[in-house]
């Protein structure tokens, strides 16, 4: 997985000039760029794929399979890994000591990337950002969300992390140290949240359900959902 030094989507925004008339409709349809001419990057990517196919190095079906795995499997890997760490103290230690080796036990290859798992404790809360681009543990969490790539998050998470966390609904007491990780070079990061009370005896699958993407980036913490409705008998 390669992170480009320039995030195409994030960089488009500053170039948004107001020399034209249009509505800023928050419900405007998402433009998938399937209209009009392809961008330079699409042309390059398409040409590369066609060359590799012509030389018999890859097939179109392999590319499709890879995209399918990226969307169907990658986003859920991180939760499985952390749920296992919650239930197995030996694995937890291995994950904290050497993230890449530990996730390999799950058949997860980080390829060229190294992984650092950082543990939340009652004293320390970790949060991940990449100020330079949008480095993200894609093989564990899938594609980064739009907010992670936004200039707003990338700029503010480093100098006012508590304000940013508050906007995500995460209020931390002053007694908790906020530890920001700028994922700026060759390592990738995943947060190991604290296991909440009320999850005793849960299976790993059930634990994984509360380990949402945002808890693993550190902008929120896992919560046990209260049973909605239904007054006590």
């Amino acid at each position: 997985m390669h992170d480009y030094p320039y995030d195409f989507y994030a960089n488009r925004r500053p170039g948004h000039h107001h020399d034209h008339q249009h509505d800023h409709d928050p419900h405007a349809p998402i433009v998938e760029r399937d209209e009009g001419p392809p961008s330079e990057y699409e042309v390059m990517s398409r040409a590369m794929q066609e060359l590799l196919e012509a030389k018999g190095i890859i097939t179109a079906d392999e590319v499709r399979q890879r995209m399918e795995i990226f969307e169907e499997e990658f986003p859920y890997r991180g939760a499985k890994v952390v749920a296992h760490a919650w239930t197995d103290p030996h694995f937890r230690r291995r994950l904290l000591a050497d993230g890449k080796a530990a996730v390999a036990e799950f058949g997860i290859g980080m390829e060229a990337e190294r992984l650092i798992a950082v543990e939340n404790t009652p004293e320390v809360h970790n949060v991940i950002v990449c100020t330079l681009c949008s480095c993200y543990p894609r093989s564990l969490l899938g594609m980064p969300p739009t907010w992670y790539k936004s200039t707003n998050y990338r700029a503010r998470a480093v100098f006012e992390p508590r304000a940013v966390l508050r906007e995500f609904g995460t209020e931390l007491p002053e007694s908790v140290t906020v530890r920001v990780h700028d994922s700026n070079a060759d390592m990738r990061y995943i947060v190991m949240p604290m296991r909440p009370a009320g999850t005793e005896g849960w299976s790993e699958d059930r634990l994984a359900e509360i380990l949402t993407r945002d808890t693993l980036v550190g902008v929120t913490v896992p919560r046990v959902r209260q049973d909605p409705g239904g007054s006590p008998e």
Partner: protein
Amino acid sequence: MPAAKQTPAATVSTYTPAPGHRYTVGDRVSVKRSYPPGHRRTPHYIKGKIGMIERVCGTFANPEELAYGFDGEPKRILYRVQFAQSTVWPDYRGAARDVIEMEIYEHWLEPA
């Protein structure tokens, strides 16, 4: 730096040896105040700041060379450096113990 005591024990990655590394965990370092053009992984906001080596990440192909199609040799040693937020941002509003950590290549560091 009191901040360091609040974070988990520093670890050295077991899979990325860094023979001949100049700094070790706990060393105080400052980030060079240098603004060369090109592809650099050292954010501007940390230049000139003093921090502490949190871990030695290992040896990696130099991204400043890789970005332009070279092979990244010689490889460079990468560290994670921890900074007290109050020293990075003069008007930081948060707890005094808050920290920020990032990866800095050895050639961007000087003893402090």
